[in-house]
């Protein structure tokens, strides 16, 4: 305890040695991400806070005389932590996290058109006793409506600097940087804590603090001062019954504090009544008072454009039609636009393979490079365009304000199955990747709702499944077009694959909410922000982050898997005869009879070697189990090898088929089409392709997701449950698909 406590209150490291740390906080929908992006650009590192899975986003920003580390905290309406997620922000702001440098300055992003509500958070921030600056963002939106804000007066009344900004138009950024520089140069690490609530409240707090000290002296804690939480946390403990601050402090100081807490709460109740009532009334009254004479009330408070758009987009009929259209447009675009960059990557992969083949003699190393490395990683990289596009659309929907409308529209549907519209965003994110999706469930306050969402989020078809779908659809689904080319069969099949997961998620969530996660329906309060033109920079920085993460993943995990798979398919076996044939083949002219004979000899030899390899043996061993799904041993191997990550199946199949010597100019898709059973019938028919797709739509072949679930739920139970139920569903789904499909 004592050593950990010392860590908490370590004195600030000299700013000469490390960059000053500045925290960026604000309500959701204040343009905080845009401002973060304007300040830090792409100079951003992302990671996780120790022990929790809150994304830690730190950007480097140059202020002229100094460089700062800008920490982007999750958007929040209030610093009253009700979940571990919300507590992290408080811990960062009160310098209460191990191994995190102290925050020297807080920049609070405030939406100029919702000043009063935003000042609620500001009033809480000012209780922290840290230098604070307000970035009065989206000032252009309010000016265009004819409303004026007296920024100087606001600054004067609040007693802190207020800088008018418009992050999306890059207005006020230099002024904001200058203000930050001024504050940091003034060397004031702490300022007086604002006291917005009634004096009697602070008196009870002080008494409670004394009681905590007294308790700590008799307890096992040696270093009382260091172990004592920040004053703000003590206040929250009194205010939030059953809140996260209470749990945290009890965890740190022991259950001995409970009697004192109950005494203090009782006293508070007799003096001020309901604590939350008192807090909210006092803070809003404070905000109202600070805003007197600040806002020129000549224009409209809210935008008419948003009202008009909402009249259509949340209309009883039109709204639902628009929703379906938007969703379909996204899937159709991913399919249509990504074509040409994919072709380019495909050609580049072929070009590199040819280059390596022409300079190296046949042998193990060449086989490793072309069949293992290039075939594996190249086959994954080719899907980068679609992933970038999907993240592009997700970021676009979120930034323009439509995502909240989608939650509004579908909430009723989600409640039927025990979830809320809030589960929509994590589920939608899971279409990109279940890892951020599972992490995004932290916006769901209710634990049961959150767990149910975590359990079904991996059923949403993530970007790693997309390669599998695209490969198989491209190879086996005819490109029939309907409605004059607006609707194509491949797009319909692709959308159906996405629907498989969605449709399965409904009964799964329903069953969970009726059994393991039984209880009352959780609350739902959702802000519908004003529509705005999406900030292109924010959208692209999200696409960039996601693409980078995907490439890095393809470059490490999948690369490693490729090498392992290549080795398993190469060893054991004597490849001397294969190399002789390759050398001969490369020395003769193509299109001659001799070349054709050599080619077919080589294929037979390669296939023989592959079947005798480790991979071939494992594949044959499990063949009886996958036979009812219409699969051959190669597909079975792919499914096993893709346990670390789904997209590995592409690399595996790529490796298997190029090792098998089947690969021709058409690449993997062609090799699969050409693949035959021993009796001469095609391995891949449409039902087989669909069966594989359904299996991958439902399976839990992703170690990252399972590990994130483990961290988020802090238990092995949930990831094991996820894996088990999804694998069983995947097998059954594939079985039904093949058995029904092959009889039609």
């Amino acid at each position, binding site marked *: 305890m004592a050593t950990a406590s010392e860590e908490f209150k370590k004195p600030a490291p000299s700013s000469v040695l490390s960059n000053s740390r500045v925290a960026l906080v604000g309500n959701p929908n204040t343009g905080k991400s845009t401002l973060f992006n304007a300040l830090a650009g792409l100079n951003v590192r992302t990671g996780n806070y120790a022990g929790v899975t809150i994304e830690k986003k730190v950007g480097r920003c140059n202020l002229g005389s100094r460089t700062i580390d800008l920490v982007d905290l999750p958007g929040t309406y209030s610093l009253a932590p009700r979940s571990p997620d919300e507590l992290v922000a408080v811990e960062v702001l009160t310098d209460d996290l191990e191994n995190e440098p102290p925050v020297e300055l807080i920049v609070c992003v405030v939406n100029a058109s919702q000043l009063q509500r935003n000042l609620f958070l500001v009033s809480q921030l000012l209780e922290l006793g840290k230098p604070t600056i307000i970035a009065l963002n989206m000032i252009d939106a309010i000016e265009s409506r004819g409303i004026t804000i007296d920024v100087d007066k606001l600054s004067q009344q609040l007693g802190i600097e207020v800088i008018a900004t418009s992050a999306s138009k890059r207005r006020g950024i230099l002024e904001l940087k200058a203000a930050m520089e001024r504050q940091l140069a003034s060397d004031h690490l702490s300022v007086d804590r604002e006291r917005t609530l009634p004096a009697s409240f602070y008196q009870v707090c002080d008494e409670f603090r004394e009681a905590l000290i007294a308790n700590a002296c008799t307890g096992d804690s040696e270093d009382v001062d260091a172990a004592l939480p920040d004053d703000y946390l003590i206040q929250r403990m009194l205010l939030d019954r059953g809140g996260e601050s209470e749990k945290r402090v009890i965890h740190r100081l022991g259950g001995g504090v409970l009697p004192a807490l109950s005494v203090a709460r009782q006293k508070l109740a007799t003096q001020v009544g309901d604590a939350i009532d008192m807090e909210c009334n006092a803070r809003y009254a404070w905000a109202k008072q600070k805003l007197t004479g600040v806002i020129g009330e000549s224009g409209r408070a809210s935008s008419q454009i948003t009202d008009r758009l909402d009249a259509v987009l949340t209309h009883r009929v039109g*709204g639902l039609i628009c929703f379906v259209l938007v969703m379909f447009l996204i899937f159709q675009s991913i399919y249509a636009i990504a074509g040409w960059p994919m072709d380019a990557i495909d050609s580049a992969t072929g070009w590199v393979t040819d280059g390596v083949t022409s300079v190296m003699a046949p042998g193990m190393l060449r086989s490793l490079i072309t069949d293992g490395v290039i075939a594996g990683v190249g086959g994954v990289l080719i899907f980068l365009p679609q992933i970038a596009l999907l993240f592009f659309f997700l970021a676009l929907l979120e930034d323009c304000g439509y995502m909240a409308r989608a939650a509004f529209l579908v909430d009723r549907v989600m409640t039927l199955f025990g979830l809320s519209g809030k589960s929509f965003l994590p589920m939608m994110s899971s279409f990109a990747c279940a890892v951020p999706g599972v992490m995004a469930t932290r916006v769901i306050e209710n634990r049961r709702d959150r767990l149910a969402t975590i359990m079904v989020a991996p059923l949403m078809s993530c970007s790693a499944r997309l390669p599998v779908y695209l490969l198989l659809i491209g190879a086996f689904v005819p490109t029939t077009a309907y409605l004059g080319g607006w609707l194509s069969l491949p797009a319909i099949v692709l959308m159906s694959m996405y629907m498989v997961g969605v449709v399965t998620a409904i009964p799964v969530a329903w069953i969970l909410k009726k059994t393991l996660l039984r209880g009352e329906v959780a609350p739902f309060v959702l*802000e*519908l922000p004003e529509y705005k033109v999406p900030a292109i920079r924010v959208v692209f920085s999200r696409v960039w982050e996601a693409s980078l993460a995907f490439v890095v993943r393809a470059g490490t995990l999948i690369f490693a898997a490729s090498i392992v798979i290549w080795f398993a398919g190469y060893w054991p076996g004597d490849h001397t005869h294969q190399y002789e044939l390759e050398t001969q083949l490369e020395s003769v002219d193509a299109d001659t009879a001799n070349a054709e004979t050599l080619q077919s000899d080589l294929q037979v030899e390669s296939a023989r070697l592959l079947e005798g390899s480790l991979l071939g043996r494992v594949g044959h061993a499990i063949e009886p189990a996958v036979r009812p799904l219409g699969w051959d041993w190669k597909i079975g191997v792919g499914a096993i090898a893709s346990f670390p990550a789904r997209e590995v199946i592409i690399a595996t199949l790529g490796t298997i088929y190029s090792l098998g010597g089947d690969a021709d100019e058409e690449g993997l898709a062609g090799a699969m089409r050409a693949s035959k059973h021993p009796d001469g019938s095609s391995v891949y028919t449409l039902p087989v392709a669909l069966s594989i797709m359904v299996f991958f739509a439902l399976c839990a072949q992703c170690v990252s997701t399972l590990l994130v679930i483990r961290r988020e739920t802090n238990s092995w139970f949930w990831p094991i449950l996820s894996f088990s139920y999804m694998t069983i569903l995947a097998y059954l789904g594939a079985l039904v698909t093949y058995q029904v499909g092959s009889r039609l």
Partner: protein
Amino acid sequence: MTTLDQLLPGQRGEIVRIEGVDGIASRLREMGFIPGESVEYLRRAPLGDPVKCSIHGCRIAVRSGEAKRVLVQPIG
């Protein structure tokens, strides 16, 4: 006196009180649903729930069950 979910589209009401002391009551208060504040009922979602209202110049969606806990005095 009535509850928020009983107002007509476009009708305003002055908040009298919020019932309950749980998480949802706190969240409503933090979002500005406090006594004396004026709230406008805007529309229902296509499928009947949640309802959209406007408070502090901001559009907020709450479920009917939650809107029932906001006691209001209709204005006009």
